[in-house]
């Protein structure tokens, strides 16, 4: 139960509430929690927005009522010309226009309907236009346009009260900010993006100005001109017509949009070119650049100077060092020269002394010829003896008598002669050596460490041919073969053999021929003798054949081998056939060759075996 008010009590707020709201942790459960969070997140539900906006709304409602009074303008409206009417003004929202909330539009419409509905006016005894001719149609149209967001946007885009003008450059010369600031502000409403940057003032930072112009140069406008479409799509009778209308409209819209973009562009261009701040920034930039440039040049110059200085200092230092060095060298040279001079003088003196001494003693002889010879010898002495020995000699000469002196001189002479002789011998030996070495180099070391007889050479060549390259431990085998077959009895190692073979290879073909010929001669001689000594029985023919048998060419050899293979051992008349297969050879030739080959192979094998055995023994 409330009590009654006392006398003089009025409604009043005596003080503010002491505590603001507090944040509480709540449990995330239940319907009401969900509802609360949803309301808070979306912030659209009645209880939230209404509660938060109540104050503002109550303020605005007063204004609306005020606006509703002036409806004489409505009566002048032509319902046919609804397209050109100002829909905001019709609904009494002329003062807020595009800023009007949807709710306000709704409210305004409601108020208008209440006041201007034909039924109401008829009741009040007013004259009503027939059908659509009444001005109430305009209100309906206005609401139709403004309640639809798309249509409203289209209308907003061509808002008749909007000032499309762009200040020229000359206008803004004096008071740039006063001229351009409102222009940008009113154009900002076309921006798709919120938070359009403000023009600012003279003191705006470079970043702000830059952001401002980059925003406006990339202006993203929602302004479109569908409201101004000449034809209405809905009026078309068929699809083709509709399409045609659409095309027309689109072209018109695009054109207008382009114009609009140009307008904004011009505006921004004008502003940019007039902006005193841009000028300022440019100047600053320029000054800065210049300063930088200057600084750079200065720095460069300084650096160069420093470099130059350093270079000069280095040069100076180098020069000084060089001078010092030269001085030193000169000093040394001087010193050395002096010493040399001294020495020279001394030696000259000593020589003179020796000569005079010798002369005084008449060159230790009375004989004229001897004297002359002695003179020569003494001269030689003078020439060749060192200072020290000269001094020594002089000393000896001065201290002794003539005879002693003579002996000393003679001894010296002898020594000198001996020395000269030795030197000459050495020179000769060197000369000999030189010639020898040259000789050796030309002859390929023919006179190697071990003397190789003709026989041996022949044997070696044979062995080398017998064991061609690729044979297992070839040179050992060759050496073994040589040792086995050599008549000289000199033991040769593989190394010797290699050396010899190499030197042989180096020999020019002419020399090789020579050796071969020699070998052949010898062979002929030997073989010519052997059969005679062996027996007289074998026929001359055989002997002749043996001696006359031409050497087997490789071709013949190949043919022979092939024939041997094609006619195996048990073939009847084998050798006849083989001989037939080898042209230019008789049966006997072939048989003989075969025997030789067999022998050679046998020898080869034996040699190889021996080497192998030796190798095994070594192991």
């Amino acid at each position, binding site marked *: 139960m409330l009590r009654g008010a006392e006398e003089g009590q009025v409604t009043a707020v005596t003080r503010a509430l002491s505590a603001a709201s507090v944040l509480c942790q709540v449990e995330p459960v239940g*319907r009401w929690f969900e509802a609360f969070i949803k309301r808070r997140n979306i912030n659209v539900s009645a209880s939230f927005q209404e509660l938060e906006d109540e104050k503002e709304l109550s303020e605005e409602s007063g204004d609306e009522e005020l606006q509703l009074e002036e409806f004489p303008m409505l009566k002048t409206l032509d319902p046919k010309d609804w397209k050109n009417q100002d829909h905001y003004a019709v609904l009494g929202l002329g003062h807020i226009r595009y800023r009007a909330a949807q709710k306000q539009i709704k409210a305004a419409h409601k108020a208008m309907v209440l006041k201007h509905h034909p039924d109401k006016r008829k009741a009040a005894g007013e004259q009503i236009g027939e059908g659509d001719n009444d001005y109430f149609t305009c209100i309906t149209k206005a609401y139709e346009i403004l309640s639809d967001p798309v249509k409203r946007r289209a209308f907003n885009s061509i808002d008749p009260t909007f000032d499309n003008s762009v200040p020229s450059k000359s206008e803004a010369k004096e008071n740039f900010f006063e001229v351009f600031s409102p222009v940008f502000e009113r154009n900002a409403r076309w921006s798709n993006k919120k938070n359009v940057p403000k023009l600012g003032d003279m003191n705006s930072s470079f970043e702000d100005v830059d952001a401002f112009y980059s925003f406006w140069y990339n202006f993203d406008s929602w302004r479109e001109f569908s409201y101004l479409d000449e034809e209405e799509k809905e009026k078309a009778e068929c699809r083709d017509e509709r399409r045609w209308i659409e095309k027309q409209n689109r072209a018109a819209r695009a054109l207008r949009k382009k114009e609009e973009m140009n307008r904004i562009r011009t505006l921004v261009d004008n502003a940019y070119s007039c902006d005193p701040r841009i000028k300022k920034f440019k100047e600053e930039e320029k000054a800065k650049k210049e300063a930088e440039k200057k600084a750079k040049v200065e720095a460069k110059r300084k650096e160069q100077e420093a470099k130059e200085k350093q270079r000069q200092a280095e040069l100076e230092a180098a020069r000084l060092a060089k001078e010092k060095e030269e001085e030193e060298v000169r000093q040394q040279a001087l010193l050395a020269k002096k010493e040399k001079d001294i020495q020279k003088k001394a030696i000259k003196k000593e020589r003179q002394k020796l000569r005079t001494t010798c002369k005084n003693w008449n060159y230790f002889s009375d004989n004229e010829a001897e004297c002359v010879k002695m003179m020569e010898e003494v001269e030689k002495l003078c020439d060749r003896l060192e200072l020290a020995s000269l001094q020594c000699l002089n000393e000896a000469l001065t201290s002794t008598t003539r005879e002693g002196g003579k002996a000393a001189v003679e001894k010296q002479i002898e020594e000198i002669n001996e020395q000269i002789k030795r030197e000459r011998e050495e020179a000769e030996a060197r000369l000999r050596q030189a010639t020898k070495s040259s000789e050796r180099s030309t002859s390929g070391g023919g006179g190697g460490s071990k003397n190789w007889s003709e026989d041996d050479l022949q044997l070696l060549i044979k062995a080398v041919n017998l064991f061609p390259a690729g044979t297992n431990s070839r040179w050992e085998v060759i050496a073994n073969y040589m040792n086995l077959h050599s008549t000289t009895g000199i033991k040769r190692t593989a190394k010797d053999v290699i050396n010899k073979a190499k030197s042989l290879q180096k020999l020019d073909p002419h020399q090789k021929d020579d050796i071969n010929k020699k070998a052949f001669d010898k062979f002929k001689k030997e073989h010519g003798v052997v059969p005679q000594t062996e027996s007289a029985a074998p026929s001359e023919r055989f002997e002749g054949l043996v001696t006359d048998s031409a050497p087997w060419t490789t071709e013949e050899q190949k043919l022979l081998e092939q024939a041997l293979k094609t006619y195996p051992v048990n073939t009847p008349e084998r050798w006849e056939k083989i001989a037939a297969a080898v042209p230019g050879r008789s049966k006997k030739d072939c048989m003989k060759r075969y025997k030789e080959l067999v022998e050679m192979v046998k020898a080869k094998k034996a040699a190889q075996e021996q080497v192998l055995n030796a190798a095994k023994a070594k192991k």
Partner: protein
Amino acid sequence: MAAIGVHLGCTCACVAVYKDGRADVVANDAGDRVTPAVVAYSKNEEVVGLAAKQSRVRNIANTVVKVKQILGRSAGDPQAEKYIAESKCPVTEKNGKLQYEIDNKLVCPEEVAKLIFSKMKETAQSALGSDVNDVVITVPFEFGENQKNALGQAAGAAGFNVLRLIHEPSAALLAYGIGQDSPTGKSNVLVFKLGGTSLSVTVIEVNSGIYRVLATNTDDSIGGVCFTEALAQHLASEFQRSYKHDIRGNSRAMMKLMNSADVAKHSLSTVGSSNCFVDSLYDGLDFDCNVSRARFELICSPLFNKCVEAIKKLLQQVGFTADDINKVVLCGGSARIPKLQQLIKDLFPAVELLNSITPDEVIPIGAATEAGILVGKENLSLEEEALSIECSAKDILVKGVDESGTDKFTVLFPSGTPLPARRQHTLLAPGNNSSVCLELYESLGKSPAKEEGKFAQIVLQDLDKKEGGLHDILTVLTMKRDGSLHVTCTDQDTGKCEVITVEVAS
């Protein structure tokens, strides 16, 4: 659209299904509405539920119980250490994570929880006859972030789509729909939950259908098993008396006795006396013993006292008396015990004791209700800030007089109301007055309103006199999120109106 709510307790798990506007607990394949949260690992299969619990006698090392106590805890946590010490199933630490060692295999607690959740899912699916994924899971109020994550992971592994994890006491309130019907006014609710291993008491303020936990207290030393244990001890002493065998050291015999005591305890909640019978309890001897409810209450009286003390302590902590509590919600299986309910009723003589829903089903039903609210919603993610909302700081009161003529304050706008909010009251004034004065006060702490608390007065003049009648004064209080107040008073007869706006002192 069906959704389910799952409550995973230390000893038991329970699942409720929300279908056709109703939340109901569904029975598992064994016909029990509550499934023991016990998992037994045998050679080739894992058994969940009653079978696992009963086979624990033979398979103690490979049976995991009370997995909730270790879930999401790391080594070194005192709770975890305590659990490890008690656990019959060896627990080892590997890479900082605690894992069970079963048959030389490592099993992490999340896997065990996953098995239980899978079982719950199966149960719900067989009841619904269709696949169900959306679930709300309850967690104790004191669960930390790690434990919640671990529980969420386990549920996810079981194939659930977790809509939200909610606190057990809130779920209990939701099950009874407290504050969800009439979203005005404010009340305080005490939630008494006596679970298998712990007792937790919570005071929740309900304002405009939104719950706010004022204080909570958890005691891990008392729970349903304590009663069973006490009864088992009693039975063991009875056995000793008759057969001269002390079986307290024999774990297997004690296990059998515990199972028997558990059954007896349950039946004692409904009947006056119960019979405990164990075949071949020890040494081939059968054990048969009758326990009356009075005996049971005598055995457990220290435990009952402990529960009552916990409630008293919490009230003291919040600074409430028993009269400040408007409702008491009982949950947890052991809250069934008639003696305990009697004791609580004695503590709050004027308060409605809500036990119409079986106590161990309260929480899953609440979870299912929440699941029903959430299912089908698009944006379920909760930011941290969503959980803290602006509330009014102080009560707004109006001064009036009662019949005897003494000053009387009436709360128009309670503290803790989520903002923005609008409250509407119709105040009465004697009809023979031509004017009415509303004096508005704000409360100063817990003490009653004083003159200093007055911040505004609203006077309505020149009202029509109605001899013998009453003036109806419609008072609307609107408070915005920043705490500023807007009051509108209207006389219903004359339409006279006064408006004030009170800002917050900066």
